[in-house]
């Protein structure tokens, strides 16, 4: 019907599948994000290391280029677990920065002017809402972590040949799982912060603090109590521990190997606990704001 016909008409057309409606939030959030030039620049910058890593693979598998660069040692360029650990560290840090920029506004924008009841007064649950917002960060951070990780793995497999893929296929698992837990933890922390803090700059600060303050407390605890269990509060270190174990790292690339090492299940437990805690905070904050007071 033409817009100039001013009368109310009921809607009798088709409806989208209910399960897919959470993605409307994701789509609109991406549309808003890509309006920001700063975001686009940040996204491009976070993908720049991938070009260098891809270049490294190209050089490692190209004897002519190595000769041109006068590389005499054949083992200088190797694409093994250390390479993927470095790639993962670079990209998870990029993901952290992206998350600090994007995460704080995702929910705060809806809460600032009380839009949340409008979402939830429709056939749309709180879980759908969280899923829609989580998908924004999930897709975005995936695009800079495990997706380029797998692309680099495939590139190396294609260029190396000779069964490289079968002897290294196990590395797909840590690329996927380490990225997944990091993305999930970052996303939930930033959504919980976004649901609690309105101002972006403050929210970004709180995300940083939520990583560094517990780590500081952990170190204090270690110093006072003469133990090493305080490291459990250093989430970044716990992630690196998981990363090192996942990639079977033995060379001390991620810091000196210690006898007093936190067990990997404990590291996983801490990160999962942080996810659950963030989810509880997020749920409580949304529940408190979903109803219009009267």
């Amino acid at each position, binding site marked *: *019907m033409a*817009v*100039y*016909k*001013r*009368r*109310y*008409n*009921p*809607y*009798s*057309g*088709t*409806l*989208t599948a*209910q399960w897919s*409606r959470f993605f*409307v*939030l994701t789509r*609109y959030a991406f549309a*808003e994000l890509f309006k920001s030039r700063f975001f686009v620049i940040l996204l491009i910058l976070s993908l720049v290391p991938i070009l260098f890593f891809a270049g490294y693979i190209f050089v490692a598998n190209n004897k002519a280029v190595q000769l041109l660069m006068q590389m005499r040692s054949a083992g200088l360029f190797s694409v093994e677990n250390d390479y993927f650990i470095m790639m993962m560290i670079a990209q998870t840090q990029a993901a952290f920065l992206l998350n600090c920029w994007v995460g704080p506004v995702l929910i705060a*924008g*809806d809460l*600032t*002017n*009380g*839009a949340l*009841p*409008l*979402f*939830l*007064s*429709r*056939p*749309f*649950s709180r879980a759908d809402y969280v899923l829609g917002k989580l998908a924004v960060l999930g897709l975005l951070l995936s695009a800079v972590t495990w997706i380029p990780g797998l692309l680099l793995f495939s590139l190396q497999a294609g260029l190396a040949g000779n069964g490289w893929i079968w002897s290294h296929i196990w590395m797909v698992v840590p690329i996927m799982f380490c990225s997944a837990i990091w993305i999930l933890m970052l996303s939930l922390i930033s959504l919980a912060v976004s649901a609690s803090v309105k101002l972006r700059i403050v929210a970004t600060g709180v995300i940083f603090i939520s990583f560094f303050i517990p780590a500081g407390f952990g170190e204090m605890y270690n110093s006072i109590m003469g133990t090493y269990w305080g490291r459990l509060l250093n989430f970044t270190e716990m992630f690196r521990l998981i990363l090192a174990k996942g990639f079977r790292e033995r060379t001390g690339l991620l810091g000196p190997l210690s006898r007093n090492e936190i067990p990997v299940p404990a590291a996983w437990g801490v990160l999962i606990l942080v996810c659950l805690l963030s989810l509880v905070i997020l749920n409580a904050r949304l529940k408190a704001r*979903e*109803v*219009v*007071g*009267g």
Partner: protein
Amino acid sequence: MMNATIELNGLEVQLGNRTILHGLTGVLKSHAIGLLGPNGAGKSTLINTLLGFHSPSKGSARVLGLDSHSNGSALRSLVGYMPENEAFISKMSGVRFVRYMAEISGLPPDQAMERAHEAFVYVGLGEARYRPVGTYSLGMKQLAKLAQAIAHGPKLLILDEPTNGMDPPARKRLIELIREIREASDICLLLSSHLLHDVEETCDEVLILRNGQIASICNLVEERRANRKFLELETIGAEATFTSTLESLGCECAVFSNGRIKVVMPDKVEIREVFKVAADRGVQIRRMNHRRDSLEDIFLNAMEQTGAADGRI
């Protein structure tokens, strides 16, 4: 028989340890229902319960035949909700905001876009639809909220204080819009307002709450019909023959001192027949009040009755 729009069966709602709604029971069958009550009466809690935000601690509420708790999602797919407080995304343009909400309600993107434009033009914000909602005046924000509530074509429109903060012309336009929406389709309306006039102009039935209890359920259509035939006369020279003639026409008369007569007329008797009888009998009618109970009377009555019942008045 007409199905109930809202059916309350001993509905009790507790928030924390406090009981807000105390066993509400009643059936509201009209298409346009007003929700009245003083501050803290439980109007917003009732609306939030009907929307499924609060779970009943006892009893149940059914809206359009669906239980608000167990069929919450199905029910919300039939509802358009305009909350009392600010509810918008300030950086989005008006039409994009409405389109977004329509898509959340399940409309495909192209349909949502078309309906959003229609809704915006319909509420009279066509010229402002590409401006960010945050830049709208209070009245425009109210209209934008109405647009998002109707864009997906709901079966029940819940309006919580829709005329809040609007100047008189804007208020009048909004009330006209609400009446148009009600008359243009089979949409049901639940309107909560402090302004009795708004409810009186748009609703057929009123639920009056006080202290979380039902003070009154009143069918305004029937009230209007009953009151239309109620006359108060001040006469000179009226004798018993005047009232007996009126009674022979089917009127009920009560005679008071100083020539004051109260007359309840049946539907078939018109006022001009009263004048004709008066002229025939040589009775002067010095004053005639075509009295009807306004919603204010009904509201105040309900407040007094429940106040007396709980010992406050």
